[in-house]
């Protein structure tokens, strides 16, 4: 019987009621009395020197409050990068400045040149059109290989080249790696692209800055996944403001997927301009602006080589990747192709020798940073595609080849710096084989063939490092932040509880799932527990939500704080019942003395805490409120196996997803309904990447996919119902809930399954196609079949 409350139950989401009735409070729903509006004049060329900006005509236009250019921000810091990568020679990465408004040069289409603040949005936009900018166009830098060629034009004049870093992980001695390849019985090689994507949360970014002269206090309302991170970066690195004078609020946020982690120029601008204009300043991105200013994702070009012995054991893996950084280093950009990608190149397999080389490159395109999965989808795609190709070359079953090479003993130290604490990859594959009805595939293929369609089955595994992250480890690796999280459990006198958390919910359902944990620990009704998040003036300093960390890291802090509350409450209960604290038991919201019939209810203890007439005041303080900061001991390692079945129309190349099954091991699960939903959403995005999406620049650096007319988002009729199984559960060994995180799995695990399935379909039709780069549009598939 499924539980109806507490850990493991699927109560209906409480946040849904406001979202379903139009009562949500998203940032664009916030309007502050007297607010002005800002419109950013953005570069329409990829690379140019700014020779002059004439704002005189615009300044006189109706409603204009003030016009800003780069010159207004000369005394102000630029947007910082939060992770310093050290290259293969021990040198720090090249780190160019990233001004709020362009200074001297523009470096991508969308780079903001000037900002017009006016009484209405329309007036701001009209005035921006009257600004004259004298640009001397410079050569666009789009192709990564060309950007690294000798004599290539430089994007940042003060850097030595367009190379951000040249980084190696795993076996650093090239000769050792080469020897492993020389001794191999077989080597499979694959060159592939993990195309650039746009995260596209349905809510565009918004910022509202407010300044109160009377108290010298700022408030920034913003569409963020991590309000404290924004406050810290903006105060300490950009504007030089005292943190205690700045409040950052991220209210209901309409999806993030990584792109709302980062600190953006518009946030700092609205905060700065609110004081400069002495008026609240609001900015709402149009979708067109989002396409040219939200940090984008992926964009890797890779050569991967897999060496095997005569028995098909993997003996070595070598990858060379070019990773596009875009024009500037966005907040976590540098860590994505390195510590979130290279470290995952062992996958689920016991390959003894691995070398990962990544060269990160500046180009005159929108900055690239974490997008759902962030580095791990890129790693998974390479590994699982090359294994599939190897299985075909060796004539072995792709599931069998994977099983043969699975890591089966834990903890396992990979050659690429991680220690997997636990997992059961064979058990999870068993679940997949059942969930996907692999046994029935041959019959389904025959049926498709009868209808003139090619049917393919694609399998892959994935592993991810989540629960980001142990601060001491990431500090050693170059992170400029800690990655703990925090929770305050505030028990009210009447026994209800407010839990203030550093994690931020922008679709994940924390308001429902987190109370399930606290309520179960105490034994009270979930309705008595409320989650507060998204406002630095209310919550403790936590690092927010990304990297599938909310429950594993912030949830652990919440457990620790709740334990502290329970411990103190037991002291109070012991005092009330004149018993020894060691004898106090808490069950179903009642404190009792072991071996007696004495008991006192949760509500009586909480009331006593706040009305301490009969209270051990000499031993403990009144009140019942505790905070815990939790820093994880290791990453968590969700892993899974996915299966996709496609039909390919040989006449048109059109791919239809017929079946999709996912078996994931997330460790313990608090709310299965929410976990299923997270996996569904990830698969939807992964299918989008595999079949539809792609962010494209032409050779002049013009963004060709700048709207939903050119960037194909997955729609309801592009995807099937999914089968999701998470009954394979090896609990995380190092956090109190045994949870691993589930938010990114679907997006990591699904693209290779789709591509493997399409290749399988084409091969079944006698086409010798071994790879097609994503997105697998009908045109590309048709060309591959007929090429």
């Amino acid at each position: 019987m499924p539980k109806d409350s507490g850990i493991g139950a699927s109560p209906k989401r409480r946040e849904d009621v406001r979202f379903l009735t139009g009562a949500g409070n998203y940032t664009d729903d916030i309007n502050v009395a007297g607010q002005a509006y800002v419109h950013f004049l953005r570069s329409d060329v990829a690379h140019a020197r700014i020779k002059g900006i004439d704002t005189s005509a615009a300044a006189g236009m109706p409603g204009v409050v003030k016009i800003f250019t780069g010159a207004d921000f000369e005394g102000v810091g630029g947007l910082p990068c939060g992770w310093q990568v050290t290259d293969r020679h021990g040198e720090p990465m090249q780190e160019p400045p990233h001004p709020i408004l362009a200074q001297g040069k523009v470096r991508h289409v969308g780079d903001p040149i000037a900002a017009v603040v006016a009484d209405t949005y329309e007036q701001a936009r009209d005035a921006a059109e009257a600004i004259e900018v004298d640009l001397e166009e410079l050569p666009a830098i789009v192709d990564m290989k060309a950007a690294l060629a000798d004599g290539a034009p430089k994007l940042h004049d003060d850097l030595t080249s367009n190379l951000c870093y040249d980084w190696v992980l795993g076996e650093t001695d090239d000769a050792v790696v080469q020897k492993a390849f020389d001794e191999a019985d077989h080597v499979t090689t694959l060159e592939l692209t993990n195309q650039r994507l746009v995260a596209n949360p349905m809510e565009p970014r918004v910022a509202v800055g407010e300044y109160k002269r009377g108290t010298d206090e700022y408030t920034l309302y913003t569409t963020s996944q991590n309000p404290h991170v924004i406050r810290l970066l903006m105060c300490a690195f950009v504007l030089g403001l005292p943190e205690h004078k700045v409040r950052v609020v991220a209210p209901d946020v309409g999806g993030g997927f990584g792109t709302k982690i980062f600190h953006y120029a518009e946030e700092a601008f609205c905060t700065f301009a609110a004081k400069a204009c002495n008026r609240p300043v609001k900015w709402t991105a149009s979708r067109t602006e989002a396409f040219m200013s939200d940090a984008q994702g992926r964009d890797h070009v890779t050569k991967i080589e897999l060496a095997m012995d005569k028995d098909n054991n993997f003996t070595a893996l070598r990858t060379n990747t070019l990773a596009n950084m875009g024009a500037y280093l966005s907040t976590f950009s540098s860590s994505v192709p390195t510590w979130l990608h290279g470290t995952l190149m062992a996958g689920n397999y016991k390959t003894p020798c691995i070398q990962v080389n990544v060269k990160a490159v500046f180009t005159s395109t929108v900055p690239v940073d974490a997008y759902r999965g962030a580095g791990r989808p890129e790693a998974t795609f390479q590994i699982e595609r090359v294994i599939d190709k190897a299985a075909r070359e060796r004539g072995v079953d792709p599931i069998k080849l994977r099983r043969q090479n699975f890591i089966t003993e834990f903890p396992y130290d990979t050659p690429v710096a991680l220690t997997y604490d636990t997992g059961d990859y064979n058990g999870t594959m068993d679940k997949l084989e059942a969930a996907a009805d692999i046994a029935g595939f041959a019959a389904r293929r025959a049926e498709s063939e009868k209808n003139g369609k090619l049917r393919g089955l694609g399998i892959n595994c994935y592993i991810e490092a989540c629960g980001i992250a142990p601060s001491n480890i990431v500090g050693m690796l170059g992170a400029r932040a800690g990655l703990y999280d925090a929770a305050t459990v505030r028990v009210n006198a009447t026994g209800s509880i407010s839990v203030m958390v550093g994690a931020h919910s922008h679709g994940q359902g924390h308001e429902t799932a987190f109370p399930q944990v606290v309520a179960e620990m105490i034994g009270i009704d979930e309705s008595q527990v409320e989650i507060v998040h998204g406002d630095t003036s209310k919550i403790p300093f936590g690092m927010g939500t990304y990297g599938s960390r909310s429950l594993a890291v912030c949830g652990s802090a919440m457990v620790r704080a709740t334990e502290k509350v329970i411990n103190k409450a037991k002291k109070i209960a012991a005092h009330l019942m004149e018993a020894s604290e060691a004898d106090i038991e808490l069950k179903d919201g009642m404190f009792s003395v072991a071996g007696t019939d004495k008991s006192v209810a949760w509500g009586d203890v909480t009331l006593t805490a706040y009305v301490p007439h009969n209270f051990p005041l000499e031993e403990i303080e009144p009140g019942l409120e505790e905070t815990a900061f939790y820093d994880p001991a290791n990453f968590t390692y969700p892993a899974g196996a996915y299966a996709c079945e496609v039909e390919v129309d040989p006449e048109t190349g059109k791919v239809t997803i017929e079946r999709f099954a996912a078996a994931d091991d997330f460790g313990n699960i608090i709310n299965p309904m929410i976990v299923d939903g997270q996996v569904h959403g990830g698969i939807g995005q992964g299918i989008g990447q595999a079949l539809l999406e792609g962010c494209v620049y032409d050779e002049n650096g013009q963004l060709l996919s700048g709207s939903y007319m050119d960037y194909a988002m997955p729609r309801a009729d592009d995807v099937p119902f999914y089968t999701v199984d998470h009954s394979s559960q090896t609990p995380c060994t190092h956090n109190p809930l045994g949870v691993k995180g589930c938010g990114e799995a679907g997006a990591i695990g699904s693209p290779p399954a789709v591509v493997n399935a399409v290749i399988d379909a084409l091969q079944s039709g006698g086409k010798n196609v071994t790879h097609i780069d994503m997105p697998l549009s009908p045109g590309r598939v048709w060309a591959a079949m007929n090429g």
Partner: protein
Amino acid sequence: MPQVSMTVNGKATSGDVEGRTLLSAYLRDHLGMTGTHVGCDTSQCGACVVHVNGEAVKSCTMFAAEADGATVDTIEGQANADGSLNVIQQAFQDHHGLQCGFCTPGMVMSAAALLKENPKPTEQEVRDYLEGNLCRCTGYHNIVKAILAASGQDVGAIAAE
């Protein structure tokens, strides 16, 4: 500036708007009814769907002046008279048909229009009808399931859970 009047969720409203003011902007900025969302500027996402004289319309594609005299229904007016969720809203909650909630007003309004036109749609009909509504969170699984459930069909056999 021209004046427009329209009945929104049964209440008479009016306001002075510029000729270029969109219906979505009239609802959000003039009436403060922020349940209707704006997710794009090319009429493709459907976050802004409302009903104008009973027909589903993307409110970002219509000028407020064009809706002068019309009857407009928005997400804010969908709950039952006692404030409880209506059948479609309830099905979305029961089947976890929303995550961040941003696409949700448009989804619910589109679903209502679909079920009015086609009270027992097939899965494919639901998917086809939602062609103009983007959701980035759910992979559509639970949205389609919720709409089938709202139409009174048994969704117990649908995968997952």
